[in-house]
């Protein structure tokens, strides 16, 4: 008897959840590097978790661990009736372009890349603007006149970071030298902190005293090595200032969390707009991080300069070149 009752309750509970889930089933697909990369993907995770806390709605998630899973993961979620489905990272653009037309009723969003389809929202960030600001800070902070840049995988998106950064550095000190390295040419480059640390060491030996990491999980190794060597580093995507207080000069934050949160919320409220969405300094889509951990590292003069530059970029007085607009960088 007891067992029967339990079974009935369980069945009722299951029906209730599935009925509820059928209404609104958001899903999030993380890119390689993983959910807890302390950077790009983690920021998306934070946005999704905030949505869950605010609305009580569970979301499905998947971490891509190799390239062959991309299309499968998107298709699986779409087939099971999830919508909206947010996919992280430029490398998911091609599989999304294949899957999205097959599920015209499903709402998709992609972060960091543009997929031009009627049911896809593309969110990109003006990383070159944010990178310009942290480059300016790096240029002012550097005593040696040499700063470093460590990229992840060698792709146009990361060159966009690099190009904006170099422009910022040169704005602070026209004579400054920027040592640039990419970690690798395969997706493994997003998750190799040992190599990241080795590259950082090489840059520091070469005279760099501020190193900017735009390399996902590899950046953890970059920040660690800079802290070990008593130099400064700049984090990326998430606010990474807390990782090594006193050594991380600032972080180029990209509000991926806001983009994810908004996509979920818009879809829930039935006002999911598709199309192209570029978040820049004006919309606070990108910016630089200042908190207790780095307050002592940034002087008032630096603060004033970077806020001035920010205002000028928004006003259009400073034009930061976007690498991806021309596939080249005028300052390199």
């Amino acid at each position: 008897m007891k067992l029967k009752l339990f079974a009935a309750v369980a069945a009722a509970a299951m029906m209730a959840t599935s009925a509820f889930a059928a209404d609104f089933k958001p899903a999030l697909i993380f890119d390689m590097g993983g959910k807890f990369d302390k950077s790009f993907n983690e920021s998306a995770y934070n946005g999704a978790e905030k949505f869950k806390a605010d609305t009580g709605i569970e979301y499905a998630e998947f971490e891509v661990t190799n390239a062959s899973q991309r299309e499968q993961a998107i298709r699986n979620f779409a087939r099971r009736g999830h919508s909206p489905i947010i996919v992280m990272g430029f490398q998911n653009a091609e599989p999304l372009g294949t899957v999205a037309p097959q599920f015209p009723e499903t709402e998709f969003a992609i972060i960091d890349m543009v997929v031009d389809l009627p049911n896809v929202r593309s969110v990109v960030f003006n990383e070159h603007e944010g990178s310009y600001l942290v480059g300016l800070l790096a240029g002012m902070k550097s005593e040696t006149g040499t700063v470093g840049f460590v990229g992840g995988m060698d792709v146009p998106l990361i060159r966009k970071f690099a190009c904006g950064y170099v422009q910022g550095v040169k704005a602070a000190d026209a004579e400054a030298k920027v040592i640039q390295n990419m970690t690798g040419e395969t997706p493994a480059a997003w998750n190799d902190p040992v190599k990241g640390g080795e590259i950082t060491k090489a840059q520091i030996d070469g005279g760099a005293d501020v190193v900017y990491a735009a390399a996902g999980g590899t950046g953890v190794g970059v920040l660690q090595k800079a802290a070990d060597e008593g130099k400064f580093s700049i984090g990326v995507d998430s606010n990474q200032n807390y990782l090594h207080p006193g050594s991380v000069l600032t972080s180029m934050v990209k509000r991926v969390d806001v983009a994810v949160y908004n996509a979920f919320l818009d879809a829930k409220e039935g006002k999911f707009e598709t199309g192209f969405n570029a978040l820049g300094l004006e919309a606070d889509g990108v910016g630089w991080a200042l908190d207790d951990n780095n307050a002592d590292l940034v002087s008032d003069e630096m603060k004033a300069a970077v806020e001035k530059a920010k205002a000028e970029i928004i006003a259009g007085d400073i034009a930061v070149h976007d690498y991806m607009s021309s596939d080249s960088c005028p300052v390199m």
Partner: protein
Amino acid sequence: MEDFLIKLPLLLDSMIRLSVPLLFAALAGLFSERSGIFDISLEGKMLGAAFAAAAAAAVMDSALAGLLAGILVSVALALVHGFASITQRGNQIVSGVAINFVALGLTVLLGQAWFSQGGRTPQLSPDGRFGELTLPFADQLADVPFLGPLYEGIISGHNILVYAAFLMVPLSWWVLFRTRFGLRLRAVGENPAAVDTAGVSVIWLRYRAVIVCGLLCGFAGAYLSIAQASGFTKDMTAGRGFIALAALIFAKWKPVPVMMACLLFGLLQAIPIQYPQISLPGIGIVPGQVMQALPYVLTVVLLAGFIGKAIPPKAGGVPYVKER
């Protein structure tokens, strides 16, 4: 060219740091393969050791505890490989692949369960890591021409595991070629029946060889996670176990050539880091992939018989069946 000369000491310094995990792992493979147990699970053992070392070092705040934990886990994995391929006479390649996959999945799973940081281990304090040592007189000698930079810049200033790795080379040579154990170990890899006839246990000898292999892989893994980096990250070995295997084959299963091969492969990894843009006349800029692929290319060329000949131990990969 001037730039090249300035960066040369940095390049050699970088080469040494990058070749250490390869050297430990290749020497580990040397012991195992010389005894007739092929081991493609160097990668998995390193990964397991790297995780265990970082986890233990984080919890106990001691680099030494981390190293011991790494060795323990690596030896345990080696014994699994030994059990499958010696006692059960299974296929050594299959067993090795299995260990690689188990290590890849289990490290992330346990890391997530214990530390909830997505398979990472917490960042280590300085006590939890092997710090850099400055050798005696390094500062005083720094100004001596040629010798000074060589000693101060390249030889001094590494962590203790780096020196341990290079000391392992003569030690391995001595064990393999100057002790009774080494003689028997090599014999069991060539002709186990003869060793058995002489009244020496083939099984026990091979088990000892895989234990030594596990021990050395433990050093390799610990070096990655608690000396070079500060904590474990998913799949942090990034194929180093396979490059070590390539180095072992390239060196034709001999200790000193193994060191040379590891230094060469370390150099190939260091070059794109120090000189991101190498341009050769007539070719233009050499992409980094070329350097990354070279260890494998060189090994294949060697196996094809263009530079000497690589002959593996005769009984390698063949489980020993005692005739009754």
